[in-house]
């Protein structure tokens, strides 16, 4: 926990403009040369309820939200939307203030809107402020905003105060406001911003040391969320069709695609349910368009059948699974990594699919592109897993990262000339599902092509697609389909750089293993542990299927013990690892969390230290250590 970083938390009610304000402030910090990371926390309700967004900004790369924070801007009129006293969701009045105090660091700053909130309502506020050396600024943001016409602009007033207290220039903030609005709205907001800034500088003395850190980027950066990464990856992979049904947090990807696809001449369909959504993706792909669908836990469960249909008919599709805590509707707005097993194995029969779990927005872009490439080259469904944490978190990425051409290749499709030459069976049908191939891929035709007629069916079928229960044919077809994963593994190993991420000294004694969105947090823990003299390295795994057997074996052979960090209660990735590798049971420990919140780096550090010192209970509350089989 260092103060060479700003972790700014803006808290209030849903509807206070927390999201837009924080996004603009994060961009302003990014454009002033800093690396940024945002973390969004919100309850599952539409009106009222307490929410916050945290922005962590520093000169060095930011990989996680960090631990705690050092600047609170408490807005909040959530109570105004919840008229009933002691309503079901609890008393709202003082939440934006007191609910946040536990994680505020020593010496931190509190700015609260004295027009809306009162510290008298917060139990032991003064004692706690003194004990923790907090710098408290009670500023009537509401009044400030009202002077220029509209109370709602108190968030802008809050930003003005923040900038003054941190000794920040207003230039970038103004630019962003100019991008976002115009006319009277812009003028009023700029006036509020300036008034708040000047008033704070004139009326308050700053006794705190916290200043906005300085930094410099070599090149232009853009602020990208996990959902943005997935959506942009899909668009750049040539995806022009999406079908979906809203479910948090998948809705973000769906909305971004729906808003952009028409501009790219593509089609977006909001349909009646998730079974239909996945079936539409199959239909569009069958007809020759690169297509996708997706959902979150419950909706994905409904997609099992069309997913199996895609496997059996060898129709390429890409599905996104944005996980939230389950089972059932679970914690609708909280992250968990609890759907891994269902994603790997849902649907009847043997699973035959590609599954990736990117760690951050840039990887989300990369791996979504890769998912499309493999899906269309190999005629196999590919699933990209994100979760509620990754979907809503923003990071800065160099703009040039996205400077890649659109991949318009429709994959293994034959032209009409090739179809004329291709083998046909006695019935005149094109042999679309030939047994013998190099890499398991039997090239397809598209409806409307000459000489390409065949039958696609979810039943087992022969070369021309006729339903066929002959045992020899069954074995030939099954084996060919399953062999695709072997070819894909070879292609990934040979032709592409590893999708797994490594951190820490290569010859480290211990290992930390994680997957998906927890990678940044674990890497930050690795850095801290090494600084404290613990010899540890990490691998952040992205390939779930086909599993990176070779890389994982090498990693596990090179360490004495390894702890797998994942956000679920049943150690699902550890289970997968042991199933795939069939060894290392005595080396593997699990560190688990499933309270609805992602890991923080210090939790990982403490649990890891405790574990290597022989503890089998977690020093951190609401987490769990599962010792190795041999322990």
């Amino acid at each position, binding site marked *: 926990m260092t103060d060479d970083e700003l972790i700014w938390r803006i808290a209030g009610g849903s509807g206070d403009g927390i*999201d837009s304000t924080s996004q603009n402030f994060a961009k302003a910090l990014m454009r002033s040369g800093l690396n940024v990371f945002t973390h969004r926390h919100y309850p599952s309700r539409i009106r009222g309820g307490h929410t916050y967004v945290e922005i962590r900004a520093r000169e060095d790369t930011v990989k996680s939200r960090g631990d705690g924070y050092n600047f609170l801007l408490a807005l909040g009129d959530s109570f105004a939307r919840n008229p009933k006293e002691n309503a079901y969701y609890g008393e709202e009045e003082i939440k934006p203030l007191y609910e946040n105090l536990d994680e505020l660091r020593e010496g931190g700053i509190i700015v609260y809107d004295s027009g809306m909130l009162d510290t008298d309502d917060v139990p032991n506020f003064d004692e706690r402020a003194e004990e923790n050396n907090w710098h408290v600024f009670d500023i009537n943001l509401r009044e400030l905003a009202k002077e220029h016409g509209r109370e709602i602009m108190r968030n802008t007033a809050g930003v003005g105060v923040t900038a003054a207290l941190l000794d920040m220039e207003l230039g970038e903030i103004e630019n962003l406001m100019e991008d976002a609005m115009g006319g009277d709205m812009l003028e009023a907001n700029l006036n509020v911003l300036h008034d708040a800034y000047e008033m704070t500088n004139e009326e308050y003395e700053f006794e705190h040391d916290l200043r906005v850190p300085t930094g410099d980027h070599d090149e232009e950066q853009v602020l990208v969320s996990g959902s943005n990464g997935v959506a942009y990856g899909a668009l750049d992979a040539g995806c022009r069709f999406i079908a979906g049904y809203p479910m948090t947090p998948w809705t973000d990807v769906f909305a971004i695609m729906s808003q952009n696809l028409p501009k790219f001449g593509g*089609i977006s369909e909001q349909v009646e349910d998730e079974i239909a959504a996945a*079936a539409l993706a199959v239909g569009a792909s069958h007809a020759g368009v690169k297509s996708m669908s997706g959902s979150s836990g419950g909706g994905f469960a409904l997609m099992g059948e069309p997913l199996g249909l895609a496997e059996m008919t060898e129709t390429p599709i890409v599905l996104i699974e944005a996980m939230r805590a389950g089972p059932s509707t679970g914690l609708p707005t909280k992250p968990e990594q609890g759907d891994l097993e269902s994603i790997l194995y849902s649907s009847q029969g043997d699973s035959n699919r590609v599954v990736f779990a990117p760690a951050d927005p840039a990887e989300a872009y990369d791996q979504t592109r890769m998912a499309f490439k493999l899906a269309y080259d190999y005629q196999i469904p590919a699933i990209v897993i994100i979760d509620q944490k990754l979907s809503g978190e923003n990071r800065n990425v160099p703009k040039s990262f996205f400077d890649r051409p659109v991949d318009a290749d429709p994959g293994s499709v034959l032209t009409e000339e090739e179809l004329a030459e291709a083998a046909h069976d006695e019935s005149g*049908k094109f042999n679309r599902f030939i047994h013998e191939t190099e890499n398991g891929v039997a090239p397809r035709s598209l409806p409307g092509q*000459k000489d390409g007629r065949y039958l696609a069916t*979810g*039943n087992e079928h022969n070369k021309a697609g006729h*339903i066929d229960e002959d045992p020899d044919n069954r074995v030939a077809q099954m084996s060919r389909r399953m062999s695709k994963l072997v070819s894909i593994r070879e292609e990934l190993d040979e032709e592409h750089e590893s999708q797994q991420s490594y951190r820490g000294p290569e010859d480290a004694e211990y290992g930390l293993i994680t997957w998906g969105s927890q990678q940044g947090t674990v890497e930050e823990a690795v850095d801290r542990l090494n600084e404290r003299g613990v010899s540890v390295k990490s691998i952040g795994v992205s390939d779930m299927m086909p599993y990176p057997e070779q890389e994982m074996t090498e990693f596990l052979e090179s360490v004495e013990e390894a702890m797998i960090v994942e956000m679920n209660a049943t150690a699902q990735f550890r289970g997968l690892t042991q199933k795939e590798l069939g060894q290392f049971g005595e080396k593997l420990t699990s560190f688990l969390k499933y309270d609805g919140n992602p890991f923080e780096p210090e939790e990982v550090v403490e649990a890891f230290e405790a574990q290597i010192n022989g503890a089998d209970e977690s020093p951190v509350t609401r987490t769990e250590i599962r010792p190795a089989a041999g322990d």
Partner: protein
Amino acid sequence: MSAFNAIGEERDIDRDEYTPGIEPQPTWCPGCGDFGVLKALKQALPEVGRTPEETLLCTGIGCSGKLNSYLDTYGFHTIHGRSLPVARAAKLANPGLEVIAAGGDGDGYGIGGNHFMHTARENHDMTYIVFNNEIFGLTKGQTSPTSPKGHKSKTQPSGSAKTPIRPLSLSLTSGASYVARTAAVNPNQAKEILVEAIEHDGFAHVDFLTQCPTWNKDAKQYVPYVDIQDSDDYDFDITDRREASEMMYEAEDALHEGEVLTGRFYVDEDRPSYQEEKKAIGEMPEEPLAERYFDDDYDWDQKRSYDLLDRHV
């Protein structure tokens, strides 16, 4: 150069072209009404002028779902109840295709009921043929959503307590722009109706009465039918929703009493198809999407923009 030269090709089409070179032994029972649909389709498609290669037939699961083993077009035998979502996406992806979906009454009105309602509501430009034999055929004779009240089967041993579905009324209320009923025992009318349905721009729903002599021996489909267009007893305006709705209601009641009324019940030529509606709001490209992947002149990068990277929802 087009990748889809079979689409829009004009030539004389022999109905035998739709028969697979080696016809798989039909697994339908002798006397099954499904043969009637197959025959009617083989006659209708050449008459409409659509070749086997520009036709995509999507079926569900059930005896009816086997239709595309015996009809030689491009085919997609999907999963139980899901022919419609697969079919309508294929049509959106490549509007040049003649897309036909088919399935049983369990498939279309039961497990796929939600898709039926919504595909009709959206008025997708396609044809949907439901083989209505008032029974589950393939799984051996269980009660279906169209089985009459009191129908006994192994899974409803005391007789069904449910009123059967009214497929025609349901279709009209949901928004289909063409609704007709025909019967396998009436091949001429069946062919004519299919021709009309396929040519119709919008969602054309044909409730096709097919007898299942194996599991549903007393079904009314054996009873001589009445063609409402030919009969002097029925005079109504098929373009008028209210009149069509009353006529459907009467036909559905009559069926339960053993009288089979067939014909066109509702035709709306004016309602734009879903594709047209989507084009009008700028959410559907003018040229077939599927073509674009083969168009060497299409500039994929031209429209690409970084705007969205810095914009957030």
